C-alpha cells in the first residue's frame, strides 16, 4: 500500500515537470510584455529596461526557467508582478474559496445522483426512469453560466431571497458567507448531478443484468437488500471514477461560475493574471491546478479497492 502510494506520487513528478515546462513556454509565446503593461503610457525606454531587469525578464528563457523552477522546488513561487504579493499564499487563499464551493456541490450532487441513477436503473423504462433520465439530460445540457444567470434572475432579483453578487468570507460573517455561496453551489450541483445520474444509471443497469443479482433474488432477499447490498458497491465503481474526474476538473478552475457570481476564486485569479501577463501567478496557478488534479485522482484510485476487492492497491 505505502509502496503503491510512493510509486504513484513518484509517477506524478514527470507529469508536473512537463506541465511546468509547457506552462512556462506557452505563456511566453503569447505576445505582450508585463513590464510595458505595468508602466502603461509612462514608459520610457530607460524605465522599461530598468523594470525588465528587476523582473528578470532580460534573461534568456532557459535561464528564466532555471531560476523560477529552482525557486519552486524550494517552495518559493515568486512574487506577483501586479500585486507584489507572494504567489503561493495568494493561490492557496483563492483555492480554498473555490474548493469550498466545488466540494459542497460535488458532495451534494453525488448524494442525490447516485441513488437517483440506481433507482432509475432498477425501474428501467418506467415513468420514474423516464423522468430521471429527462431531468439529467436537461441539467447537463444547460451551460453553467446560463444556469447561473437564471438562478441570479429568479432567486436573486425577482424573489430577493439571496444576495446577488459578491462574496463574504466565513471568518467575517458565517451566515452571510453561506447565503453568498448558495447560488454558485446550486449551479454546479445541478449541472454535475445531471452528469452523475446518467453514469450511475448506466453502471447500475450493467450490474443488474448479472447473475449474482438474480442469485440474490433467488435467495429470497428483499428488493432493497438486492439493490443496496448487492448492486450498489459493484455499480458505484465507474461513478466513483467519474466523481474524481469531475472534482479534479472543477477544483482546477470554475472561472465561468466565479465570473457570473463574482467570487474571488482560483479561476478568477488565473483569468486576471493572464490578462495582466502576471507570469509568476499564471505559472503558480497552473502548476497548482495540475498538482490538485493528480492528487485527487490518486485519492480516488486509492479508495477504489473499497468498492471492488478485485482491484488491489498493487
Amino acid at each position, binding site marked *: 500500500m505505502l509502496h503503491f502510494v510512493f510509486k504513484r506520487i513518484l509517477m506524478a513528478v514527470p507529469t508536473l515537470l512537463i506541465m511546468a515546462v509547457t506552462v512556462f513556454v506557452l505563456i511566453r509565446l503569447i505576445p505582450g510584455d508585463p513590464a510595458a503593461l505595468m508602466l502603461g503610457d509612462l514608459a520610457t525606454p530607460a524605465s522599461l529596461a530598468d523594470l525588465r531587469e528587476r523582473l528578470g525578464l532580460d534573461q534568456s528563457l532557459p535561464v528564466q526557467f532555471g531560476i523560477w523552477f529552482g525557486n519552486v522546488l524550494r517552495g518559493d513561487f515568486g512574487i506577483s508582478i501586479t500585486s507584489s504579493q507572494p504567489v503561493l499564499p495568494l493561490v492557496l487563499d483563492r483555492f480554498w474559496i473555490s474548493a469550498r464551493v466545488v466540494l459542497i456541490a460535488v458532495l451534494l450532487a453525488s448524494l442525490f445522483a447516485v441513488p437517483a441513477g440506481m433507482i432509475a436503473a432498477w425501474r428501467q423504462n418506467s415513468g420514474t426512469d423516464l423522468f430521471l433520465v429527462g431531468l439529467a439530460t436537461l441539467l447537463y445540457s444547460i451551460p453553467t453560466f446560463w444556469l447561473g444567470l437564471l438562478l441570479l434572475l429568479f432567486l436573486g432579483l425577482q424573489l430577493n431571497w439571496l444576495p446577488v453578487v459578491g462574496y463574504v468570507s466565513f471568518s467575517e460573517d458565517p451566515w452571510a458567507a453561506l447565503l453568498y455561496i448558495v447560488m454558485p453551489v446550486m449551479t454546479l450541483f445541478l449541472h454535475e448531478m445531471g452528469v452523475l445520474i446518467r453514469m450511475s444509471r448506466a453502471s447500475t443497469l450493467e450490474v443488474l443484468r448479472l447473475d449474482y443479482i438474480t442469485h440474490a433474488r*433467488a435467495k429470497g*432477499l428483499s428488493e432493497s437488500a438486492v439493490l443496496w447490498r448487492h448492486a450498489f458497491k459493484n455499480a458505484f465503481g465507474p461513478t466513483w471514477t467519474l466523481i474524481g474526474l469531475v472534482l479534479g476538473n472543477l477544483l482546477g478552475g470554475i472561472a465561468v461560475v466565479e465570473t457570473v457570481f463574482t467570487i474571488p476564486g482560483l479561476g478568477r485569479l488565473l483569468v486576471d493574471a493572464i490578462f495582466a501577463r502576471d507570469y509568476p501567478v499564471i505559472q503558480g496557478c497552473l502548476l497548482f491546478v495540475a498538482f490538485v488534479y493528480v492528487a485527487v485522482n490518486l485519492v480516488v484510485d486509492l479508495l477504489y479497492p473499497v468498492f471492488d476487492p478485485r482491484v488491489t492497491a498493487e
Partner: protein
Amino acid sequence: MTGTIPPAAALDALLDVENLSLCVSATGTEVVRGVGFTVAPGEIVGIVGESGSGKTLAARSIMALQPPAIRRTAGTIRFEGRDLAGLSPKELRELRGGRIGMVFQEPMTSLNPSMTIGRQLEEGLAVHQRALSADGRRDRVLDMLRRVGIADPDGALAAYPHQFSGGMRQRIMLASVMLLQPALLIADEPTTALDAVVQRDVLELMVGLTRAHGTAVLMISHDLSMVARYTDRIIVMRKGEIVEQGRTDGLLRAPRHPYTRALLSAMPRRQPARPLPPAAAPIIEVRDLVVEYGGRRGLFRREAGKRALHGLSLSVMPQEVVALVGGSGSGKTTLGRAIAGLLAPSGGTIRYAGRPVEAGGEGWADYRRNCQMVFQDPYSSLDPRMTIGALVGEALRGVPGMGRRKKAERVVEVLSEVGLGRPYADRYPHELSGGQRQRVAIARAVVRRPAFVIADEPVSALDVTVRAQVLELFADLQARHGFSCLFISHDLGVVEQIADRVVVMQDGRIVEQGDRDTVFDRPAHPYTRRLLSAIPALEPAGEGGVRLKWRFDEAAPEAVPS
C-alpha cells in the same frame, strides 16, 4: 406431441407446471408456449434444448425470476400444492431460496465480486432461518463449505469470489443454495463453463448433496450426455414448446419425436480412422517451444514472468487433423497462438515446410498467408462493420498475382463452399445466426487455400445440431482442399469424431500424444484417463436411439462427503 403424465404422478408432484406461456411484453412474441411438466419430490429432471428453446425462461419463471421484459400470459405453476400466482411478494421471497434454490451457469458472474463468501452464504440463512444465532449460522456455513470440498472453510469465509477457480466457485454456489435445504433445486447449465473433469466432480457433488437432502433437481442443459447420465426424466424443448418428455432410459432408447431423433443423431461419434497419404516431412514442426507471459516491467524492476508452455515439441503432417485437448489453463490456446505467430515464443523453434518461422524473417509473409485461424466465438471474431464479402475477401489481400475480379470470384466460390452463396456477400454479421457466422469464419480461413489451419474451439459456442453441420462442413472442406489442421477443443466427443491424432496437454506440457484410437482406447497417462472417464459418450443403439457409453471407465465416481 406432448408426453402424457399419469394423473397419479401429478397429484403428489412437488412442482406442477401447466400450460405455461410467456411472451415478450413489448412485442407480444410468444417465447414459451403451453409448457406443462411435473417434478416429483427427490426426482432429477432434465430440460434439454438448443438456444432459443425457452428452457431457461420456463425454469426461471417458476420463481418469477424471468427478465422484466418477459410476461407470463397463461398457465399455472403449483409448488407443494400452492398456486404461485397467488403469492404475495413476501410469500414469494420466503419460497425463493427457502424452498426453491437456483444454481447458475457462469461461475464468474454468479457470485457477488465485492462481498466475502462468508457474508454471501450467511445472508440466505439470515433471511430464512431467523431463529439461528450468528454463531449458529457460521457453524452451518462452515459445515456446508466443508461438505462441498472447500479445503480451508475458515479462510474461505473472509475470501472474495475472485480468489477461487471456476470449479471452486460453482461448489461455493452449490453450498450457498443447499445450505437452505430447498425442496427443489433449479440448475441452469450448472457446469457448462467448466472443464470435463471439474464438471464431473461438481455434478457428482450436486447429485450427492441433493440425494442426501431429498431435494428434487430441475437441470437445464444443452449437453445431452450429461443429462442422460444424471437424470431420471428428460423434457425436450424446441422453440418454446415441449416436443417430448419421458423417462430418461426410455426416451434415449426409443425417441419418438423427429426433433429428439435429430438431436440424438447430431451427437458427435467416432468415424473410422482415415488413411493419410504417406509424407516424408511434417508441414509444421515445433521444437522445445517455450512461452512466458507477463514479466510486467515495473518502475524499479522487472517482475518474473509466468511460464505458460514448458518446452513443447509437436508436429503436424500434411492433411492431418491433430486435436489439442486439455483443461482450461493447460496452455492449448497459447500453443495455437504461438504457432500462428500471434505470440512471440520465448524459446524453441517453429518450422513450416522445413523452414524456420520467425517474425519478420524470410518466409514469414508466406507462412502467415498459409496459416489461417478460426476462433471460438463467432460473435466477436467478425468485424460488425464489414460485409461478409469484405471479411472473406480481406484474407486475399497481399496474395501475389491475383486480380480484383479473380478475388471476387474466389470469395463467392468459397461462400458457396461453406453453404452460404453469393447473396450473403453483401450482408453484415449481425444479420446471420451463430452457425452461419462460424461458416463465414471458416470461409475466411480457407479462402486463401491455406496449407494449415488452426481452429481454436471452433464449434464450442454452437448448438448441438448446428455443431454437427459445421463439423461436417469442416471435414468436407478438409477432405477437398487437404489442409492440415490443429484443432483445439475441450470437447472430447468432437475430437473423437474428427481427429487423426490427439495431443493431450496439462499445465503447459504435453502428457500424451498418439493416434486417436490409441489415445481413446488405451490411454497411457493418468490425466488422459481422468479426462476420458469424466463425461460419458452417447453411442447409437438403433431405432434412432442412443445408449450411454463410458469412454474409459477408470474408477467409481468420487464419493460425496456427507
